[in-house]
């Protein structure tokens, strides 16, 4: 590279900066710094006039580095980068000096010292700009085929939607038939339509869709690769098959806790809700007095969470018991009735009207099952009651599948403390994983009812369809570079990387770390942790950062 020629543009941002700092003084100061060949202050650097000025200066003053001292890169870096690009300068030769959010806005009371701080920020910006290098984005192709793991209502919905959009889908199911948890349910709240009808309808649609290949009695054995290019080995009995897919969706559902050792659970007189569903479905319920106990094995120390669907399941089954046997007495012992949303408060009301008795208990005074009766302290009445029973139904929570951690390890995605899959961001990325190209929906993520599971299935389909629709993914140019001579192959970077974007491989020179550009987010964790200092972060090299620190330490001339 020839002579480094830096241009500095200092913005008044109306009075936002201009009102609190000596902006013309800053521009004059910038011009005194080495390598700076042009400096100017503008009322608004981001206005059309300001941007044109940058472009003209790049051209006329032969600038090969641009520093803008203004608001914040959060909102304006993309704009200034593209302005540089328009003028023929590589956008990564642009540097921000944040003198508004990090200076004028926080030091409004002290103009002189704030101006000195702004000088330091500009000095640091110029020092780094001098060492910046041009970078290029590259692209990786995406295989337009999705692997959906789990053939319940969630997985089927997701697979169908993607197939309808024209993508190939491989649908993997553990059991020997599609349907998942719904195969064990009788009727569904709030409409009381039969679960089997919904399953049959979806199964039929899936089976006749030419874009979907269903593999039952199958499981994922091995996953290699990255977004757009996953190699998945699926085991089906003795056979193994290799699929090349672009994206993977986890829709493995959850299971219901078997309350072994709790409240005398025996599967006969003391049953789970699932076992009750089967009794109702097979019309072999024979009980005149039924006590239903909520929060069995949940909201306790071992499983602190509320499983969300059990209150409604209890309401539904209590009503179905009354339907089957109008003379039955049904008691529901609950802690908090969770009937959220517009459809379920009325459903709760309907259950009350059918004569079901609701008794609130507190965790300090749990129900006690005795030989002929359940003893319970009614929190609202303030009295202890003794309820006779023919049948006791235990509402147990949904728990993660035993092998969810195993699958998570194969996919290199995280699970939470309860074994449910952990999404990329609790609020804004509920069906994404931090790793690109892998998604989650339904009860694999958290207990959800059928309606929520279907919504999430479509949501995950949408997210998964994005890289497949575009056909390629752009790779981050700010990725680490491994110096193979320095790398000792220790693998610390592989352990540190949250995105599965660096891994140690055998090479001619021995075990060396290799960066998977398509998966890398440029976070820098690998570089920071490398004991050999063999990893250099592009755009944030040690030299660039050290130059900034030295510039900060320099005394203002």
């Amino acid at each position: 590279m020839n002579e480094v020629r830096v241009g500095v543009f200092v913005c008044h941002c109306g009075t936002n900066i201009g009102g609190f700092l000596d902006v013309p003084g800053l521009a004059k100061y910038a011009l005194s710094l080495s390598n700076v060949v042009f400096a100017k202050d503008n009322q608004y650097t981001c206005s059309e006039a300001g941007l044109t000025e940058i472009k003209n200066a790049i051209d006329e003053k032969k600038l090969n580095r641009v520093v803008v001292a203004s608001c914040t890169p959060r909102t304006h870096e993309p704009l200034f980068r593209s302005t540089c690009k328009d003028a023929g300068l590589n956008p990564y030769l642009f540097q921000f000096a944040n003198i508004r959010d990090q200076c004028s806005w926080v030091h409004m009371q002290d103009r002189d010292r704030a101006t000195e701080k702004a000088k330091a920020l500009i000095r640091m910006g110029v020092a780094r700009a001098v060492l910046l290098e041009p970078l290029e984005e590259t692209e990786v192709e995406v295989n337009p085929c999705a692997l959906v793991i789990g053939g319940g209502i969630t997985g089927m919905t997701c697979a169908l939607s993607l197939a309808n959009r024209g993508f190939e889908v491989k649908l993997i199911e553990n059991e020997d038939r599609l349907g998942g948890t719904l195969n064990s349910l009788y009727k569904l709240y709030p409409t009381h339509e039969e679960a089997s009808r919904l399953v049959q309808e979806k199964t039929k649609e899936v089976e006749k869709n030419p874009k979907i290949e269903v593999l039952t009695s199958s499981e994922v054995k091995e996953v290699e690769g990255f977004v757009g290019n996953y190699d998945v080995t699926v085991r089906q009995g003795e056979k193994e098959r290799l699929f090349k897919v672009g994206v993977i969706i986890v829709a493995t559902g959850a299971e219901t806790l078997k309350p072994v050792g709790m409240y005398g659970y025996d599967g006969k007189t003391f049953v789970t809700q699932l076992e009750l569903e089967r009794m109702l479905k097979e019309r072999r319920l024979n009980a005149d007095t039924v006590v239903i106990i909520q929060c069995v094995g949940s909201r306790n120390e071992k499983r602190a969470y509320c499983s969300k669907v059990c209150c409604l399941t209890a309401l539904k089954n209590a009503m179905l018991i009354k339907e089957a046997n109008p003379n039955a007495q049904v008691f529901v012992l609950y802690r908090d009735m969770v009937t959220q949303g517009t459809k379920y408060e009325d459903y709760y009301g309907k259950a009350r009207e059918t004569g079901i008795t609701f008794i609130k208990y507190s965790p300090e005074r749990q129900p006690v099952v005795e030989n002929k009766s359940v003893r319970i302290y009614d929190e609202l009445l303030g009295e202890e009651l003794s309820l006779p029973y023919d049948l006791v139904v235990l509402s147990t929570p949904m728990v993660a599948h035993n092998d969810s951690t195993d699958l998570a390890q194969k996919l290199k995605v995280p699970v939470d403390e309860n074994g449910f899959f952990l999404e990329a961001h609790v609020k804004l990325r509920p069906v994404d994983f931090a790793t690109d190209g892998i998604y989650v929906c339904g009860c694999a993520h958290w207990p959800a009812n059928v309606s929520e599971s279907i919504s999430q299935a479509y949501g995950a389909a949408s997210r998964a369809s994005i890289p497949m629709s575009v056909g390629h993914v752009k790779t981050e140019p700010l990725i680490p570079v491994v110096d193979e001579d320095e790398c000792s192959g220790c693998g610390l970077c592989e352990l540190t990387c949250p995105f599965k974007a660096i891994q140690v491989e055998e090479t001619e020179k021995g075990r060396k770390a290799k960066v998977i550009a398509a998966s890398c987010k440029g976070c820098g964790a690998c570089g920071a942790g490398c004991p050999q200092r063999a990893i250099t972060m592009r755009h944030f090299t040690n030299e660039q950062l050290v130059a900034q620190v030295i510039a900060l330490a320099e005394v203002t001339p």
Partner: protein
Amino acid sequence: MVEKPKAVLVIGGGIAGIQAALDLGDMGIKVHLVEREPSIGGRMAQLDKTFPTNDCSICILSPKLADCFRHPNITLHTISEVKNVTGQIRDFSVKLRKYARFVKENECINCGECAAKCPVKVPDEFDMRLRKREAIYPYYLQGVPAVMTIDRENCLYLTRGVCRICEKFCTINAIDFEQKDTDATLHVGAIIVATGFDPFDPSGIPQYGYKRYRNVITSLEYERLICASGPTGGHLTRPSDKKPAETIAFIQCVGSRDLKNNRYCSSVCCMHATKEAMLAYEHDPKVKSYIFYMDLRAAGKGFQKYVARGEQEYNISYIRNRVAKITEDRNENPIVWYEEPQSSKTEKMTMDLAVLATSLMPRKGVEELAKVLGVELDEYNFFKTDPFNPLDTTKSGIFVCGCCREPTDIPESVAQASGAAERAAEAVMR
């Protein structure tokens, strides 16, 4: 040659509409995102923090606002309303009314010189009327598009024909009083409705004293009060005397689970009350909060743990009770009255501030929109859906997500928004 997929119309620029638009845009489908207000962001932009992580709401939202604004496939139509829709799935014709901003959107740089000179002062709706703004104003600090807007109802020139002082002080001539309301026709293949919610007005429950007592406020007002960019700069002070609030009552189910108002549960209030109480404690560890609830509904991921943290680390007491009434003492301290269930005795507690967790209701004007779209609403005026087809309205090609279909927290709204985008993509690409 394959026919190019039709565009999709998204009505509502809150987090649900934004997410739906971004997903579709990223798939390569053109999107028209219509927002009634001058900037997108919706209710989420008004929140201070979000449960259960206490992430700053605007901080996690604003990158999405910028993404929407810059997205090559998304066209933003702010201060705009859908006036008429004809046609059917894959072939809708939409008449859009675009109201004049009286500020040139491509030229205004949001410097605020105009507002500094504007003589008008009116209550600011974004800050829940807790602060005054000018007639030329930014909808909110981080709003997108980041431009000023002239409020036609209050501008002196537009109402009385005199003033135009903003025009004189605008250094880049971005004010344009000649702008007219315009109509545009859009051709789209599918429509997503994401119009969100309005809070219930608790003056309909006179025994809670809202508007009669200055220190009885709503949750959304509280969110603005405790927000650093809000009317008090984030200082949690009582409206009556600006003293710090140290004992706070959070009253749940105000207008919800209420036979006289909304029978349904608003789903998010148990959690946002917990969050709001936590934030008060974070601002000042002297704060003691009481949450008066009926059933604690903490069923989402990490919610029970969040509540437990509130009790153990943030000085929050949960009291299972429906508050009967609120009165006030001579120092304007709200007094919360309730019946102790086991003894049936009437109890009362004196507070510095009472916060009403108001029900989430469909937006005003939603009936008209439903009529325009030709879709059905449910008995509460939420968009009607089937539990097993949860994102489809009653009309083919029109989909729905977020709080306009049912009160829903942010993660679920976002998942639904992506889901509605998927349904719309299926519709236009088939």
